[in-house]
């Protein structure tokens, strides 16, 4: 009656390739073996191992299946240790469908199903199936319980290419571009050195030979060039990642789709969203743009993935999205900011840090002490931003927190998602009537802690229930 379904056959090859990639060292060891015991024997051993691996993969594939029942999914996995799980449709929190590039070629997709269970690390159900089947499955799972479907009654929120370019420039992905350059350099270092021998110290010697102004010009040109290339890289990266971004809500479900090469699509219950984070990098604070992320279990816990709701929006669009899609997270209560006389508390640790650095510099090379002034300036800016950004507030059902200097984050969280509140203060803070508030959240990376510092005493305890 109920049919057992398994992973697509492609998954076996994919897993095998991954296994071989992980155990590449063994393959190298086999090479050593050949010289030790002769070719024939090592071929025998190698093929034996290969057969075992194939058998294992096949058995694992065979013994990993799920069955869709009347109102639940039954999942069984394992050869020796068998794990059986039955998930009622009601408990499903997030469903996400993603397609890697290879999967698109073969017209398959990976579906990931999560319940809001924090004790279970990672996702609970992950299957690679035919594209049509994953869509069908998602419809089945979402339609049970509610009557709505994926029809786009409301206009979806989309991101224009122009906005994506701006986003890639003012978010931190320029740094990511530099990171990519660095990785590329490592890669070339490893593989190209064997073929081309470029001696960089030769250039350095040449630079030394020329006069100082020329050297400065050359170096600044190189640095500017690197920044430019990393900018281009980051634009391309962001463009491919968030290409064709769509977000729309439908009754009590929210749908998100994006990606050019790796296509992702998420759908989750609005009820199960625990909170929203509105983030701004330094440049975004300057230009007045916001990134919206949400706190929901099963979303954003995979590698290289953020729990993104909308990559970049202006203030008015942000308010509109909150009004439209997540009206329960509209915070209208009172907001407390740190007092003016608390300002010093944001700076003193940084000043101590700077003083220590200066002392070390003086010991090693006194000329470097001048450069630490730049560090001081940076620390001062961070301190000022932290002071400016810190805020805290509670109303009947929501708790509002704003923190961090360079990457400002404003979090609006449901009171029910907050697991515990800790109020802490040192002796000096207590004397002036300040304290730090930190809360522990119900979230997928267990024990997510949010903290705001140096606020007035006694503003949270009473409201927190």
């Amino acid at each position: 009656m109920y049919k057992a379904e398994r992973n697509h056959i492609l998954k076996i090859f994919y897993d095998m390739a991954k296994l071989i990639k992980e155990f590449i060292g063994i393959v190298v060891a086999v090479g050593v073996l050949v010289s030790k015991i002769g070719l024939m024997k090592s071929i025998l051993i190698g093929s034996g191992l290969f057969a075992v691996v194939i058998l294992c993969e096949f058995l694992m594939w065979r013994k990993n299946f799920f069955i869709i029942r009347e109102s639940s999914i039954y999942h069984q996995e394992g050869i020796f240790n068998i794990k059986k799980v039955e998930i009622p449709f009601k408990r499903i929190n997030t469903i996400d469908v993603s397609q890697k590039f290879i999967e698109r070629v073969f017209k398959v997709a990976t579906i990931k199903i999560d319940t809001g269970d924090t004790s279970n690390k990672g996702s609970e159900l992950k299957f690679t199936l035919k594209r049509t089947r994953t869509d069908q499955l998602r419809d089945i799972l979402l339609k049970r319980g509610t009557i709505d479907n994926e029809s786009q009654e409301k206009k979806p929120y989309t991101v224009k290419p122009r906005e994506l370019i701006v986003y890639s420039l003012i978010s931190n992905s320029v740094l990511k571009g530099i990171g990519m350059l660095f990785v590329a350099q490592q890669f070339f270092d490893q593989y190209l050195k064997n073929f081309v021998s470029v001696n960089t110290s030769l250039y350095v010697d040449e630079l030394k030979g020329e006069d100082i102004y020329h050297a400065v010009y050359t170096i600044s040109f190189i640095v500017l060039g690197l920044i430019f290339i990393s900018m281009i890289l980051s634009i391309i990266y962001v463009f491919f990642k968030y290409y064709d971004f769509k977000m729309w809500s439908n009754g009590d479900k929210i749908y998100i789709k994006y990606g050019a090469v790796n296509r992702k699509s998420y759908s989750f219950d609005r009820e199960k969203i625990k909170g929203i984070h509105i983030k701004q990098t330094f440049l975004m604070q300057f230009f007045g743009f916001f990134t919206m992320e949400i706190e929901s279990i099963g979303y954003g816990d995979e590698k290289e993935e953020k729990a993104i709701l909308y990559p970049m929006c202006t203030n008015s669009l942000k308010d509109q999205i909150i009004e439209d899609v997540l009206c329960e997270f509209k915070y209208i209560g009172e907001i407390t900011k740190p007092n003016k006389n608390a300002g010093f508390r944001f700076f003193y640790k940084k000043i101590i840090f700077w003083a220590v650095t200066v002392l070390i510099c003086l010991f090693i090379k006194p000329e470097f002490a001048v450069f630490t002034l730049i560090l001081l300036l940076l620390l001062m800016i961070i301190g000022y931003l932290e002071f400016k950004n810190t805020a805290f507030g509670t109303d009947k059902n929501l708790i509002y927190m704003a923190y961090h200097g360079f990457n400002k984050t404003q979090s609006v969280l449901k009171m029910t998602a907050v697991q515990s509140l800790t109020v802490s203060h040192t002796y000096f803070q207590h004397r002036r009537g300040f304290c730090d508030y930190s809360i522990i959240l119900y979230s997928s990376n267990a024990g997510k802690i949010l903290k705001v510092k140096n606020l007035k005493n006694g503003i949270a305890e009473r409201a927190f229930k």
Partner: protein
Amino acid sequence: MGYESIDRNAIKTWIIGRTIVSIIIFTIYILIKYLLIVPRFNYILMVNYLINILEFIIILFSIMESFVWPFLEYQQWKYGIFEDKIELIRGIIVRKKTIIPISRIQNLKIEQGPIQRIYKITSVNIITAGGCHEIPAIPVEEAEAISERLKRIIEMGERNV
């Protein structure tokens, strides 16, 4: 129902436990010093100075941690169980007050280590969906009474909802 202190035996268990840990750390330090560093770098004056300073710091910290801190910590530790929340107050330099609403508690775990068993005390772990909070050193009977009381409070709360 106000705040209650933890059991006085906590001081003894802390002293014994931490002394053992300090001895282990110190042994490892001595081994590293005389097997790895002294034979090789003994001639460098700076290294000698640094090692002596490090030694002093380690000894000072272990004495503080094992013989001074437990008394202060015992004085600071207070917990209170109210009808809708649990409050924990602790900390010597940084004073912390944690509030856990009863409705967020997922389960309670009562734990007893070997040293705690000698003095007939246990630690109660309050586990929420976000993390774990510990009340150290409560007499066994009281711990059971607390878990019983919490169970009743939670049941009452559920009936009201």
